[in-house]
């Protein structure tokens, strides 16, 4: 589904992502881990097209997508959420969700779009609130809305950038169930996450980055036990 | 011819730079797009004109007196008119629009008052119209003085910004307004200070301008726009950049006028400006 080869991104003199290779198979749920500043979010931005890579190649669903603008990547069936919630508050809640439908590969607008948007809202737990304003939503509900917007087009692949950060334990459990539901429906998911509980529960496989390079890739249990990974997270003294 | 054209351009640019310095401080630190900026300059020019023609005092004395006056007026304008808007604004976009509207209104108001008090004819006095010969170009002493004052004020401010605690605070506000309060800087005070300081420099620019050029009650608008062009080219809040960009614009105008066609000097200014905006939107010297 997704193949990343020698992905590199430089900001001036700073190398944020340095020659990263990995791939994600269809239906897989993969965790992308690493300490703060290790380049995870940059990788997400490179895949979604928000940033152009300095070097390297990204293939998605058989097509090369590096150098493509984000709106064309989105049309191929790749959706994402953002590290800090990003919504469009001048649109009603339902219209936030209709937006990607209306600009999908097969645009859907009008009644049909409303129906599908409401279904997506129901799926994330916002049933019946489509006519309200974004400002009326609390934090978890805004996260839910963002997810609804990402999944309403029924994407082939979903990028979640710390989508579960900042939730309390009850909310977290609900959120994990939501993701599990998506996984069970067959959606391919790449998620950046710091909450280990969620990673262990959702991701059979993990990729770990540190200082812009990939340092581990494999089954979650193995990776999390890898001394390099522990060193990267906790520093040398703990090894 | 090359050298003398260069000198003419540099001297011309000196005035531009001086006027732009104040605006870059106002806009960079106080974050207010002040469309009434040029009116402070013209107010300074009128003030010196009154001192010179009504009381027979020296324009140099006027220059010294006009700086605190410009500071005080701008400080007050910030406190009375702009501060409430800053406090009210829920996001940057709203403040931007509010400040464009309100300073545009102030511009009208000031131009109206100048016209009522001084009339709309050209005003001026004659002073230091003695030629100074510099590398083959004959330059008015008053104009030379403009260049010298611009360099002095620009250099002095730059040193103050780099070396004093006060300057460091102002720079912190300019570069990272959101973090300034975390390290104990009162953003509002810094903004008011910067706005006043910019006004003081604007008034000084007006005093210098009046020494060699007639002006009218409505000339402020042109000055604001020229200053704005230079501020953007130099990089917002960048004193050295404003100085360089001002000189650069002066030199370009002189050379286009001499070598290409005087009809294209202003077009060249704007073309370069638009080019800079597209190529390096953060300014040439960012």
């Amino acid at each position, binding site marked *: 589904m997704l193949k990343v080869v020698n992905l590199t991104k430089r900001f001036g003199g700073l190398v944020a992502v340095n020659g990263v290779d990995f791939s994600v198979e269809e239906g897989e749920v993969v965790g992308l881990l690493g300490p703060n500043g290790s380049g995870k979010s940059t990788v997400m931005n490179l895949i979604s097209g928000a940033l152009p890579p300095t070097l390297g190649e990204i293939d998605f669903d058989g097509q090369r997508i590096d150098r493509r603008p984000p709106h064309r990547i989105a049309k191929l069936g790749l959706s994402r959420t953002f590290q800090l919630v990003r919504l469009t508050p001048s649109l009603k809640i339902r219209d936030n969700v209709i937006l990607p439908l209306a600009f999908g590969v097969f645009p859907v607008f009008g009644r049909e779009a409303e129906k599908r948007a409401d279904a997506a809202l129901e799926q994330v737990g916002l049933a019946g609130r489509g006519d309200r304003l974004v400002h009326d939503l609390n934090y978890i509900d805004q996260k839910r809305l963002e997810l609804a917007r990402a999944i309403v087009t029924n994407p082939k692949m979903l990028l979640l950038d710390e989508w579960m950060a900042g939730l309390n334990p009850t909310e977290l459990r609900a959120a994990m169930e939501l993701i599990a539901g998506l996984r069970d429906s067959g959606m391919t998911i790449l998620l950046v996450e710091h909450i280990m509980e969620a990673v262990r529960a959702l991701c059979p496989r993990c990729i770990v980055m540190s200082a812009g390079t990939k340092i581990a890739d494999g089954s979650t249990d193995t990776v999390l036990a890898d001394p390099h990974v522990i060193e990267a997270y906790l520093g040398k003294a703990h090894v | 011819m090359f050298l003398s*054209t260069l000198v003419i351009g540099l001297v011309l640019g000196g005035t531009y730079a001086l006027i732009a310095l104040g605006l870059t401080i106002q806009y960079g630190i106080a974050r207010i797009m002040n469309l009434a900026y040029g009116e402070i300059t013209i107010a300074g020019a009128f003030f010196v004109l009154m001192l010179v023609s009504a009381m027979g005092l020296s324009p140099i004395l006027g220059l010294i007196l006009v700086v605190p006056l410009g500071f005080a007026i701008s400080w007050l304008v910030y406190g009375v008119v702009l501060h409430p808007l800053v406090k009210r604004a829920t996001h940057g976009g709203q403040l931007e629009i509010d400040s464009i509207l309100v300073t545009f209104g102030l511009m009208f108001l000031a131009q109206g008052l100048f016209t009522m008090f001084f009339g709309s*004819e050209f005003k001026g006095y004659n002073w230091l119209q003695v030629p100074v010969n510099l590398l083959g170009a004959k330059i008015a002493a008053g104009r030379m003085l403009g260049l010298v004052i611009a360099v002095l004020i620009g250099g002095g401010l730059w040193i103050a910004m780099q070396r004093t605690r006060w300057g460091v605070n102002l720079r912190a506000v300019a570069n990272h307004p959101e973090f300034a309060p975390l390290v104990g800087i009162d953003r509002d005070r810094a903004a008011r200070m910067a706005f006043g300081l910019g006004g003081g420099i604007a008034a000084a620019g007006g005093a210098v301008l009046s020494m060699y050029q007639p002006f009218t009650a409505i000339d402020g608008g042109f000055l604001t726009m020229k200053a704005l062009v230079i501020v953007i080219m130099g990089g917002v809040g960048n004193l050295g950049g404003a100085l360089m960009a001002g000189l650069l614009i002066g030199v370009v105008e*002189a050379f286009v006028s001499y070598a290409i066609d005087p009809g294209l000097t202003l077009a060249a200014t704007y073309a370069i400006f638009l080019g800079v905006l597209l190529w390096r939107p953060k300014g040439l010297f960012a």
Partner: protein
Amino acid sequence: MDFTRRGLVAATAVCALTLTSFSGMAAAQDRTSIRIGYAVSKTGVNAAGANTTTIPNYELWAQDVEAAGGLTLPDGSKLPLEIIAYDDRSATEDLVRSVERLARQDEVDFILAPWGTGFNLAVAPLFARFGYPQLAGTSVVPNIDGLSDRWPNSFWLLGSSEAYAHSLVDVLKPAVDNGALNGKVAMISIADGFGIELSSGAREAFTDAGLDLVMDKTYPLGTQDFATLLQEAEGSGADIFVAYSYPGDTFAITAQAKLASYNPKVFHPGVGTNFPVYAPMNDGKVEGVMSLGGIDANSPAIQDYLARHAEILGKAPDSWASPVIYASLQMLQQAIERKGLDREAVSAELASGTFDTILGSLSLEDNQLKDLWYIGQWQNGNFVGISPTDKAGVADAVIPKPDWN
């Protein structure tokens, strides 16, 4: 669809506002006064010019008429003036609308002309349509003959660009022929209506007269620095320097020429040279500077005009358009005295009559004032007329111009 409701509210508001603004149309003509209206640029980019030439003379005239007990009508009765003045904010759209307002809402008896070439041309069709005479005292227009055919009520009093060029040539040519001047001309002009008309007229006239135009450059509005242009003019070796410039430029050009000790044998900047402020601004050292316009400083009528202008308005008039504007008002006043408030008759009288003004006895040819000072020169503190060279009261041109100091 709530926009429709708001739309209806907006529409109602529009209609209400519009209609109320037109209600209470002009009051009945009970004839306790003569209503005179004008719209000029009190503010905006044209204000400096309008406030130097047009507005002071309108005000001076109004005061003079008031002091005389009002305007005299053919039956010998006198009616006071009622002045309605608007600001066109230096925008033609505002000017056009103000004139429509004066004619149709205020229903004034006469409308005085606005300031400037473009602005007078812009309202000429309106004056024609509403049947008002237009006495344009601040317009220098090309192809002037066609204009009065198109708008028979329009009167162009400041001459055509060709006339200025030929008058200048009349002054220069003898000096070139006798070797006092080398016949080379350096000309700069502002890229605006005024500069273009005059420079294109001059270009032709210079060539026809066999003068050598060695430099011919335009500069845009807003230019502040003329050092490079003057440098080039000096380098061109021309004895004759002509600038068709606006007041601010004129002052800057003069100041910078003095600084650079650039002292061509003929120094002729544009509008502003004829402003009273020109001499003091240059420490009075303006002897020999030529420009457009001029006055007959020895004429008692002009001396009286200058004195009253200074006394009543607290400032001196310029020596080009100001006396022309004042004379145009005297013409209007006398035409009204002869023909009353019938605008058609007044227009006809203006076109054919002879009037006694501060410029002497004037009559128009083809709706134009041709008996006019085109070129003047600063001599002994006055900006005196030196061309047409055969005009009564002419002063001899001083060529070459003396040194700046």
